[in-house]
């Protein structure tokens, strides 16, 4: 059983929500009955492969595809000249990516040509027969270098490599620093982490003779995907259908239209046959988006008691060769800052910079994970210098419910203080600190996360849903969200069942399919529990109304007197007058009335768009925010610098846990990514711009022997706007685990590493330096 702590009001006992019911997709997944895009096989299908640039930066002088075209079994070969002039991107006006490179390649992995053939092996052979003559150019792999005068220009026609920058001052930094008793400055960097989803990216597309397109895409955002495809292809959305596949992990890496999606569609159109692309693992590391490496320079003024008087944050985001979601991520970073603390003066300079590296995009706590690593490490260092307990300094600064940050984010519900206290007690913090075991250390970090982000596709953050009550009384929830494994379907089923008053077992969920489900932006930005959940709840309420209307007549009971609970509809003041929900449903549709029961609902929360100067009207880009604290215990080998994760305790303010087991699973998975970011992960390139770790051989992902035991505490603040009070949980744990581990390492052996990943090599070097300084 998960540990659940309800801190606001009494915890309501519901029939279905709040229960650890088994996942609705569990049996299908353990028996491998789900279908991923990898499994899609259609008659007459062709396989496609993409030829990618071997250079970090080069002119394309000449491409000769003749040999490839002549290989038996090859049905189409395409280069930039063979496809429509489409430019891809996520954020207007930064549409800077041609699906196939036109005159220039900008990173190792950039798409140059594509082949469709009768099988995968032939397609692969054909790509090797395409002759490309490159003229290599100087490249730049570091964002600070890329910002300098005279750096190689990644996109010609621009003045420099800066995609955009945000500069703002809220309050007065100068004044704040004057008021401070101490001012501390630090620099931090984070690596280019890859999602490394177990399912590599892929797509199957059909284009019929009337240019109707059907796509099976491994995506987190089926409806948005369709909308974006229509925009890029300049065709009506009604010409495109996105079909459901289960997605083998997303974490933000499957939340945009990629070049390969368009390439697949163009090949399908050209050949008149279904075309399938599946990425190899080495392609996955280069050809999909990554977590932005960020360089941070922090300057913080604190008072004697550790409260923050002023904060300055300079952040330089490496968005790689193309902008993708860079502009949005930069916004996330500055919105986060250290604003889970009360900060009266906040200045920032934030940059999104091109380099010749793989593309930076969205990745679980985008900007937030990196920001948390920097800020929470920094705060710990400040606490140490001031002689204040790291837990205490956080409690003193933590925001509380009802407050609004400088930047405009309103904390409608907030359990940060409780999260800190619970995480600390769950890991036995004070007892272990007193014991002071050699080479062991404890660290804590806290952070916060949005539940949705208005601006991802414009001035909306909506989800809608249908709830259909079938003729036999069973229920189908139709949601435009995806199945990427987070437990979304299960939560939606529980919400619908609770609202309707039916058995969880009688609810089925249909996701993703754009023909049958209504629009939902998708599963990004921690939005689904709150926004899609509210949509489903509203749709279920609408369906319930229709059922209750008929029941009122059948039972001779006033509508307002009716209640639907546990499969029964009954008169509240005369419970003997009751009918089975199923009976009423059958009556309405088959026996008595002949009317289908279809509830519809939507939710577009009261969040706001960013102002020009990157502030928000409250509540901010999200209707409410999640908070969390994570305590980590590590052991560091003082001679080898190896770090062993002993235990972690995470307290997450999730509002209300629709399914505590699923929420726990999200916490545990989030920690895995944060620990990887902090200890082992990151794409590496040599001086020639060549990738050094495109396989799991050298891109090290933690396995079961590396990961520690995790205690999760679900802190429920019962958000007034969330469905049954739910907010969501999934991303802040990734963010908080980074600095918690870094702080624990410092506590264990007294060295502070500011550049993630914190490898044994860096630890040992720092210890040597420390010894020599003495």
């Amino acid at each position, binding site marked *: 059983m998960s540990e659940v702590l309800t801190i606001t009001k009494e915890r309501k006992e519901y029939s279905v929500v709040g229960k650890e019911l088994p996942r609705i997709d569990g049996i299908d997944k353990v028996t491998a009955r789900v279908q991923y895009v990898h499994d899609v096989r259609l008659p007459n299908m062709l396989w496609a492969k993409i030829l990618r640039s071997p250079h970090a930066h080069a002119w394309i002088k000449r491409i000769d595809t003749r040999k490839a075209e002549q290989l038996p079994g090859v049905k189409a070969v395409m280069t930039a000249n063979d496809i429509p002039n489409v430019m891809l991107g996520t954020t207007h006006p930064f549409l800077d990516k041609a699906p196939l490179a036109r005159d220039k390649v900008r990173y190792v992995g950039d798409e140059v040509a594509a082949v469709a053939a009768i099988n995968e092996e032939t397609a692969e052979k054909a790509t090797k027969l395409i002759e490309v003559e490159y003229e290599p150019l100087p490249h730049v792999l570091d964002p600070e270098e890329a910002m300098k005068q005279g750096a190689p220009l990644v996109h010609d026609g621009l003045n420099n490599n800066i995609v955009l920058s945000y500069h703002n001052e809220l309050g007065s930094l100068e004044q704040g620093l004057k008021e401070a008793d101490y001012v501390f400055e630090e620099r931090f960097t984070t690596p280019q982490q890859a999602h490394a989803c177990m399912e590599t990216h892929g797509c199957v597309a059909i284009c019929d003779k009337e240019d109707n397109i059907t796509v099976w895409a491994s995506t987190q955002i089926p409806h948005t995907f369709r909308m974006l495809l229509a925009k890029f292809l300049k065709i009506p959305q009604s010409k495109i259908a996105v079909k459901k596949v289960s997605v083998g992990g997303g974490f933000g890496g499957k939340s945009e239209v990629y070049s390969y999606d368009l390439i697949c569609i163009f090949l399908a159109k050209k050949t008149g046959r279904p075309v399938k692309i599946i990425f190899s693992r080495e392609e996955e590391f280069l050809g999909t988006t990554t977590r932005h490496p960020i360089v941070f320079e922090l300057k913080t003024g604190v008072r004697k008691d550790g409260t923050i008087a002023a904060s300055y944050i300079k952040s330089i985001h490496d968005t790689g060769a193309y902008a993708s979601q860079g502009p949005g991520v930069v916004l996330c970073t500055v919105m986060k800052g250290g604003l889970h603390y009360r900060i009266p003066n906040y200045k920032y300079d934030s940059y999104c910079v091109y380099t010749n590296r793989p593309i930076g995009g969205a990745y679980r706590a985008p900007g937030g994970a990196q920001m948390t690593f920097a800020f929470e490490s920094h705060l710990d260092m400040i606490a140490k210098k001031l002689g204040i307990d790291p837990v205490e300094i956080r409690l003193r600064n933590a925001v509380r419910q009802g407050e609004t940050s400088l930047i405009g984010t309103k904390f409608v519900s907030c359990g940060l203080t409780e999260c800190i206290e619970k995480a600390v007690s769950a890991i036995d913090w004070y007892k272990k600190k007193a014991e002071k075991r050699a080479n062991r250390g404890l660290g804590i970090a806290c952070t916060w996360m949005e539940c949705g982000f208005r601006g991802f596709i414009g001035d909306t953050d909506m989800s809608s849903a249908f709830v259909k009550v079938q003729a036999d009384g069973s229920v189908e929830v139709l949601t435009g969200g995806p199945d990427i494994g987070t437990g979304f379907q299960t939560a939606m089923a529980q919400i619908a069942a609770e609202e309707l008053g039916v058995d969880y077992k009688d609810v089925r969920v249909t996701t993703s399919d754009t023909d049958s489900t209504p629009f939902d932006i998708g599963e990004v930005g921690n939005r689904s529990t709150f926004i899609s959940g509210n949509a489903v709840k509203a749709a279920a309420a609408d369906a319930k109304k229709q059922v209750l209307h008929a029941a009122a007549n059948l039972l001779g009971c006033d509508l307002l007197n009716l209640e639907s609970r546990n499969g029964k509809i009954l008169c509240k003041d005369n419970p003997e007058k009751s009918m089975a929900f199923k009976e009423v449903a059958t009556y309405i549709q088959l026996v008595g009335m002949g009317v289908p029961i279809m509830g519809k609902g939507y939710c577009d929360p009261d969040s706001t768009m960013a102002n020009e100067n990157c502030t928000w009207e409250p509540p901010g880009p999200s209707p409410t925010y999640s908070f969390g604290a994570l305590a980590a215990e590590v052991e560091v080998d003082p001679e080898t610098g190896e770090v062993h994760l002993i235990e972690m305790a995470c307290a997450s303010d999730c509002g209300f846990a629709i399914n505590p087991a699923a929420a726990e699973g999200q916490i545990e998975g989030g920690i895995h990514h944060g620990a990887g970011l902090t200890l082992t992960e990151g794409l590496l390139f040599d001086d020639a711009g060549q990738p050094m770790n495109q396989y799991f051989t050298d891109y090290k992902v933690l*396995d079961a022997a590396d990961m520690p035991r995790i205690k999760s505490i679900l802190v429920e603040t019962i958000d007034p706007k969330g469905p049954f009070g739910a907010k969501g949980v999934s991303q802040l744990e990734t963010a908080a685990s980074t600095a918690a581990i870094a702080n624990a390492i410092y506590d264990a052996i007294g060295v502070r590493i500011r550049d993630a990943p914190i490898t044994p090599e860096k630890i040992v070097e720092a210890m040597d330096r420390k010894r020599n300084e003495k």
Partner: protein
Amino acid sequence: MTSRILPEFGYVAPETLEEATSALVEFGQNVAILAGGTDLLSQMKVGERTTKVVVDLNRVSGLDYISFDDGVLKIGALATIRQLERSKTVQSKFPILSEAARKHSFVQIRNMATVVGNLCNASPCADMAPPLLVLIAAVKLISTEGERIVPLDQFFVAPQQTVMKPDEIMVEVQIKEPQPGTEASFFKIGRVQTDLSKVNGAVKIVIDRDGTCRDAAIALGSVAPTPIRIPSAEKELIGAKIHEDVIDKVSSIVAADISPITDVRSTEQYRRMVSKVLVRRSLLRIWRGRLRS
């Protein structure tokens, strides 16, 4: 070609060793032997190795033995690392080999990879090499011309290069039972628990009743172009009265006499430093264990 597709190759599955060696002669330079496949097939996929013909040894029966006769452990060409890990004989008489097997990669790979294959692949970080080197192992190579025994410390030439000729097959690893009183230990350090090593190695030491070291061998991998013995350190140990200072000195010699590089996994400085630490720890553990008993 890619991790999704193997390049094409001709495939031969001999049923006897004679057929196998004849196949090597027939197909000349561009031949590779398939045993476990965990190195060969993975390397072919990522383009690290190309071959025109694959000779699959798996149809030859009787090659998967681990036997102990007349004081000699014999490991056949198709004996897997998992077999080595599970063998009761090896656990009792050659525990360092069990230890090294247990720490090699993970279960699925151990079920497929062969001990012989680990040596023939000749990666500088081969996990089987250091323990077999300190146990003074030898390997038996056969061809259509005959057979020869090569001491393991003369076997490795360079990364992925050995003294084996293109027409030779390694059919056996031979290890004489160590003298009574031998203690040996294997160590390995990586970036995570399941990893190719940054440094791996083995120490073997025979300590007399009076605390003198009668015999010693130290071998390290991942710190030179091939797995290597460290004779300078061994010389320091042999004949010395074992003591913390001696162990310290020996470890320092090891650190000085290796030539690690900086690569994607680690740095030269770290490898040098951690080699010293791990050798010292192994020797200290053995010595302290001895003192207790």
